[in-house]
Structures are given as C-alpha cells and as structure tokens.
C-alpha cells in the first residue's frame, strides 16, 4: 500500500517546474522505480507531479545536423521500436532491450532511468561512450551537463531540487564508428546487470571509448583510451593495455548479485569480447 499523497498532471514544462517548488513534491515519470520505492521504503512525498502530460518531453528525433534527441519521457520500447535508431545507435537500443520486461519497458523512461542514477543503469554505458549531453531545466532556465556529471554516487544524482532532465542529446558518432553493448545477469531472463559495458571504436577519428557499469558507485568511462588507441592499433597490444587500465580503474564491491572478484573476471572477459566485436565490425581495427 502506498501512503496517502496528492497527484497532479501538469500540461506544460513551466507548470511542472512551478509545482516542483512545493515542499515534498516528486516528479513521476514511468513510475517503475518510484512506485516500488513508495511501497517499500520510507519515501513519503506529499505530491506527485506526473510528467507524462508534457508534450515537450515526448520528442524522439534523429536529424542530420543535431544527431539524436530523446525527450526525457521516451520509453525504452519507443527506443527499441524505432528501426532508424536500431541501425544508427545499436548499442543504445541493445541496452534498452535489456531493461526489465516488456511491461516495464512500456513504462520506464530514459529520463527516469538516468535520474535513478543506478551504478548499473543499462542506458548509461552506451550514452557515456557517445558523449551524451543532458538538458536540465529549472525555473532559472536550462543548462547542459555531460552525462558523466549526473552521477554523484550510487542512486544519487547531482540535480538540484526543482530541476528536471528534459532532453538527452546524443551527437552523431563518426561515420566509421562502431559500437556494442554487453550485459551480464544472474539469469538468462531479466535482471539488473552484474556488469554492463559499452564500447565505441572509430578508426578514422582515432576514438576509442569504453564504459563499464556495475563496478563502482557510478558508471566508469575508462580515461585516456583515445590516446591508447592512437598509440597501439595492434589489437593484442591494445587489448592488453585496456585490460590493465580497466583492472586499475574499477572498484567493484561484493553484493547480493555477485562478488567483486567475479565482477573483475567478467570485466576482463567482456572487454576482450567487446573489442573483438568492434574489431570484426571494423574489419581488423580498420587500419586505414
């Protein structure tokens, strides 16, 4: 049972931002995390502000000049059902496909998935490697932050009270860029990630990005990988250097889903698998 509260569904962003000034108000997007928390934790909001009546947050647009723009309310299934998106951003749609079940994906939103700030959020690794920016709105106006600035810690985001993520902006990667997403779960069905990982490799621009989730209190974008890639295009050498870097960067913990040691082993296996996937797709690291 959920404790008594008030509910309102504004029709504009301005109205929603006003409502969120009220003490103990909380935004409600898909509700797939929030309603569970309202039932099982001590969270007792006085007012839920349902964001689903705000048309601005529903936009899903892929354009030549601005790349991909995802309104915060776009659901996981809307991402997956866009054929254009599946071919342009396969790592992102692969990740969205692994979020919960069909019922959850019909409700869970991209904005909500990010604001929940889970260290193992499945959309985080692909959005990190794609240099995603978030548009954050408040009564004071809009600001843009890189996605990595959203996480403060496990399930703690850096948004101020009264701020909302309204749009997720994903620039086009280079035309030669390849990307992939991997996720390890306890079962073959649906589960939160023990480890998830996304990679992007662009042989033309010399970009290599690897992001690992579930192995620290935030998703971890490995540092300095563009330089590593530019210095060592030999696949074996690059793999060895990235493995050492990942091993030194992640700080996994033991929890109900896996031990830290198991997570480290999975990271090593996944990193090699990911690099092979990207290499095959670029025909042997795309020496050009």
């Amino acid at each position: 049972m959920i404790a008594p509260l008030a509910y309102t569904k504004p029709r504009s962003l301005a109205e929603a931002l006003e409502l969120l000034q009220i003490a103990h108000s909380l935004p409600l997007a898909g509700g797939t995390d929030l309603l569970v928390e309202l039932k099982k934790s001590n969270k007792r909001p006085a007012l839920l502000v349902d964001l689903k009546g705000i048309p601005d947050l529903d936009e899903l647009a892929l354009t030549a000049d601005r790349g991909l723009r995802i309104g915060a309310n776009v659901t996981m299934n809307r991402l997956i059902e866009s054929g254009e998106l599946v071919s342009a951003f396969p790592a992102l749609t692969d990740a969205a496909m692994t979020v919960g079940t069909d019922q959850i994906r019909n409700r869970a939103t991209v904005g909500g998935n990010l604001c929940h700030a889970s260290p193992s959020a499945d959309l985080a690794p692909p959005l990190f490697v794609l240099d995603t920016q978030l548009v954050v709105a408040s009564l004071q106006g809009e600001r843009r932050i890189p996605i990595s600035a959203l996480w403060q810690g496990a399930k703690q985001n850096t948004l101020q009270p009264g701020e909302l993520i309204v749009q997720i902006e994903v620039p086009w990667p280079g035309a030669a860029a390849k990307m992939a997403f991997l996720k390890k779960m306890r079962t073959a069905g649906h589960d939160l990630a023990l480890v998830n990982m996304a990679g992007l490799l662009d042989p033309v621009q010399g970009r290599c990005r690897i992001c690992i989730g579930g192995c620290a209190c935030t998703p971890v974008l490995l540092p300095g990988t563009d330089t590593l890639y530019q210095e060592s295009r030999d696949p074996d050498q690059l793999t060895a250097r990235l493995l050492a870097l990942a091993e030194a960067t992640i700080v996994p913990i033991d929890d109900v889903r896996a031990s830290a040691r198991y997570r480290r082993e999975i990271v090593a296996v996944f990193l090699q698998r990911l690099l092979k996937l990207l290499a095959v797709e670029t025909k042997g690291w795309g020496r050009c």
Partner: protein
Amino acid sequence: MLNPLEQTIISLQLRVNGLPVQEDVPAQMTLLEFLRQRLRLTGAKEGCGSGECGACTVLLDGRPVNACLVLAAEANDAEIRTIEGEARDGRLTPLQQAFIEHGAIQCGFCTSGMVLSAQALLERNPHPGREEIVEAIAGHLCRCTGYVQIVEAIESVAGKGS
C-alpha cells in the same frame, strides 16, 4: 486553481474492456487496486507488487503494463483491457482456447497476464517467431507448468490466420 496538495482524490474517466467508467479514487490507489477492489475485476492478481512477476498485467492503450506499478490516476483517459474482456458472449478467444488445448494452465495465477501479453503481441505481429514469443512473456513467472506448453499454445495461434 485548486491547491495541488489538496488533489488527493482524483476523478477518473477511462474505458475498461470497452465500457466507460467514472470513479473518484484516492491518488495513491494503484490501477491494480482500482480494478480489483472498485470494479471487482479480479483476473489480474497481485503477486510481488514490484513489477517482477507479471501476474497483475493488463493492457493500457494496447500495451502490457504491470498494473501494480501504475497509479489509477495515471490511467485517466486510457483504454484498459483485462482478462475479463477477452471472451465475448461466452466464447473464448482462439488464444484462450489454445491455452486450454495445450495444457498451458495449471493453477491459473499467471494465466490472465500471460494471455494478455501474448494477445498484445499477436495484435502487433500476427506471426511472431519463438524468440519473440519468449521475449513477450518473459515478464511473467509461472511456477506450475513451466513455459513450454504456454509457448506452444501461443505458437499454435501465431501459425494460423492472416
């Protein structure tokens, strides 16, 4: 404008199984509680209450959702389908009939949700492959029959018709 903090009772208008429904509900009432307690539509069950088991699945504007994780207030203006609306004039749907013929039901607790998710899949894609069927029902836990008969029942309907 009404003080937002006073909006604790919501005037709902929606359609359930094709019929218009109007009710005032507490803002914190879930769609599942509304269907079961107010409308006495008890086909959707509360299993886990946290979106894991799928026993509470209903169709909201044609899409399967966990009714335990949706507020009734969020279903305002929506079209809800529950298992009670599937059979018409005492005649089961081909999918319901197939569940019986394939022995895909034992205790029945998961069945209403299974049938609705499978029905939504078939309406979106009349000829899904096995993989799509398995994915469509992956959000439903069955602890009796296992899943083979259920998948076969859905496959038998997926192979037929236009």
